[in-house]
């Protein structure tokens, strides 16, 4: 991702450094990132098998890894639009997930019906909230400095979680399904609500892919991602694209909030834990590459669960961060290649 320093596009930004040629080793490793990642997962699976000595546990780790990964992908796809395409470092993304959780709780609580009817409410509600925030606050920071944008989104995250605290209090809440049976897959098992969330992640990936690649508005989004000034010159209303794309990103977070509500304890700060993982997944998948975000979300879920079985005594997140740093250094465009430059 070329750096967007504050200078306009015309003057070659610092990122347009005359690169002294990529180091040869990086090119070799970079050429086959998918195979390298796949090999890593195989290695981890074997290590988990050896350490746990049981196919049942390893099989369960694989299934839970995929399913948990689906949740990470759900959140990351929204962020891939915001951070990947709009280049906005949005540290309030977890808080938007929290809003989705509470919308689902409120709808299920008031109507007493199945929480899934809250899905459209969460999507539309979060779209409007996201669009308004971009329109009123973040549009002013386009092209501004990175640290200022970060501070504003951190402030937003603090604001949202504490407004939720004021409105709903700090006690944990839940929006359970009346029955959430286990779905058995080759001996491993996962709750129905988690499988539905996983399926929704696949559907969302397809929807976003079609939107970005097959619709005219999608083309406008990708144009703005490629060059804000260039898009403006060819008559794209850049500000409108920012507002709608940010809204789409938060709508994804709202959908993710609704989908994980049945198996998550709902508190005002519930979304914060997903923030940094979402950024990790977005960068790994390749900026703006929605399908990349889907697959790298699954990879992070697998590394976390398999790591938990294979390495005792250390937090599995450590493995995820090490993989993240390797990707940042050796394959900055992400495992699957960035759509945004």
């Amino acid at each position, binding site marked *: *991702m*070329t*750096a*967007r*320093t*504050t*200078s*306009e596009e*015309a*003057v070659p930004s*610092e*990122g347009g*450094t*005359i*690169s002294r040629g990529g*180091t040869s080793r*990086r090119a070799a490793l970079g050429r086959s990132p998918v195979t390298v990642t796949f090999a890593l997962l195989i290695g981890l699976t074997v290590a988990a098998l050896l350490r746990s000595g049981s196919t049942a546990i390893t099989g369960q780790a694989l299934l839970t890894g995929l399913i948990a990964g689906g949740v990470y992908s759900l959140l990351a796809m929204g962020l891939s639009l915001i*951070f990947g395409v709009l*280049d906005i*470092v949005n540290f309030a993304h977890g808080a938007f997930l929290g809003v989705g959780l509470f919308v689902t709780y409120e709808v299920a609580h008031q109507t007493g019906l199945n929480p899934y009817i809250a899905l459209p409410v969460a999507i539309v509600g979060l779209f409007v909230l996201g669009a308004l925030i971009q329109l009123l*606050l973040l549009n*002013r*920071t386009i*092209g501004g*400095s*990175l*640290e*200022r944008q*970060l*501070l*504003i989104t*951190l*402030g*937003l995250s*603090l*604001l949202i979680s*504490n*407004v939720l*605290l*004021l409105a709903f*209090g*700090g006690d944990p809440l839940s929006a359970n399904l009346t029955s959430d049976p286990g779905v058995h897959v080759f001996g491993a098992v996962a709750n129905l609500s988690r499988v539905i969330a996983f399926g929704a992640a696949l559907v969302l990936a397809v929807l976003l892919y079609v939107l970005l690649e097959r619709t005219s508005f999608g083309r406008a989004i990708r144009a703005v991602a490629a060059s804000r000034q260039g898009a403006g010159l060819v008559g794209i209303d850049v500000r409108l694209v920012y507002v709608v794309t940010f809204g789409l990103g938060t709508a994804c977070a709202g959908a993710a909030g609704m989908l994980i509500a049945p198996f998550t304890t709902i508190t*005002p700060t519930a979304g914060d834990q997903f923030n*940094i993982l979402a*950024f*990790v997944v977005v*960068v790994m998948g390749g900026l703006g590459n929605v399908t990349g975000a889907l697959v790298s979300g699954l990879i992070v879920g697998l590394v976390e669960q398999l790591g938990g079985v294979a390495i005792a*005594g*250390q*937090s599995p*997140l*450590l493995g995820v*961060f*090490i993989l*993240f*740093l390797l990707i*940042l*250094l*050796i394959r*900055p465009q992400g495992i699957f290649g960035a759509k945004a430059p």
Partner: protein
Amino acid sequence: MTTTTAPPAPTPAPTRERAQSLKRSLLILVAIAAVAACAPFVLPESRQSIAIRVLIFAMMAIGWNLMSGYGGMFSFGHAAYFGIGAYTDTYLLVTFGWSPWLALVVGAALAALVAAGIGYVAFRYKLRSAYFALGTFAIAEMLRLLATNTKWVNGTTGYHVPLLPESSWTMLQFGANAAEYFYIGLAMVVVCMVVTLLYLRSRSGIYTVAIRDNEDAADALGISVMRVRLTTMALSAAITAAAGMFYAQYYTFVDPDTAFGSAQSVQAIAPAVIGGVATPWGPLVGALILGPLADLTVTWLRTPPAFLDFLTGRSGLDVVLYAILLIVIALVLPKGIVGSIQEWWKRR
């Protein structure tokens, strides 16, 4: 052969201060120190912890501003250096009984080494702005996870600095609320400011700003970009580690979350951005505003105005107000307080 005029790019605040003679900057610093020195007499005793928080914020923001403001290397992981400073101090003190002043030297050197290592790898692989920030954030998180699961640094219990029967300058420990803490903290802030002012006027300091403005031009003019960047990062990390040591000595407690938690990284960024990035006085002014802000909102809301009565008994309002103020200041003053005052004065 298109000729492109260099459009007036909105670069960070012009650094004409550097051309300002050093004497005048030091004069301003002495004036500020004098005004601040009388705080323990003006401030009611219960507010000393706020004054200390302002000093810690200031030290961290000065460190961060050097690397990310003047150096343009936006770091979102200054908690790593803060934590190294805090842990080195408590580990050496609790395990070997070292004086914090000695531990400060070791901690600062260690933090500088880590920063140089991070810098070397990052610039070797051309990590840029948002990626550099996410990379440094990941490293700080990894240090937090490592500290949490490492037995010889006491894992999540962390360290308690044992309470000494009487005050001691060598062990940097005094009675509760003792004014010595404030004066030592103030002295450390002044030292950090002097070091920054001197560094910015030094060869390496000038090169740092040159590299931020245009790396290729600096390289082509004979400036060794990597060496200068690593020096700046090392100095920035050392200052932040000093803040970590002072924090550990004042609160006599350190654990993985308070030392390496992302909240510390934000505490290094917020004052500098609010005060004015890449200005010498931005971090001080930002710390002075943000330090008391949280307590001010709590105190003001302890006797809430009528229209907020429906919220009585519910907590969180003070943080809501704090967040709103943070967002408004960051939005309204793009160049921060000092930057905007300069801008306004220039246009007057």
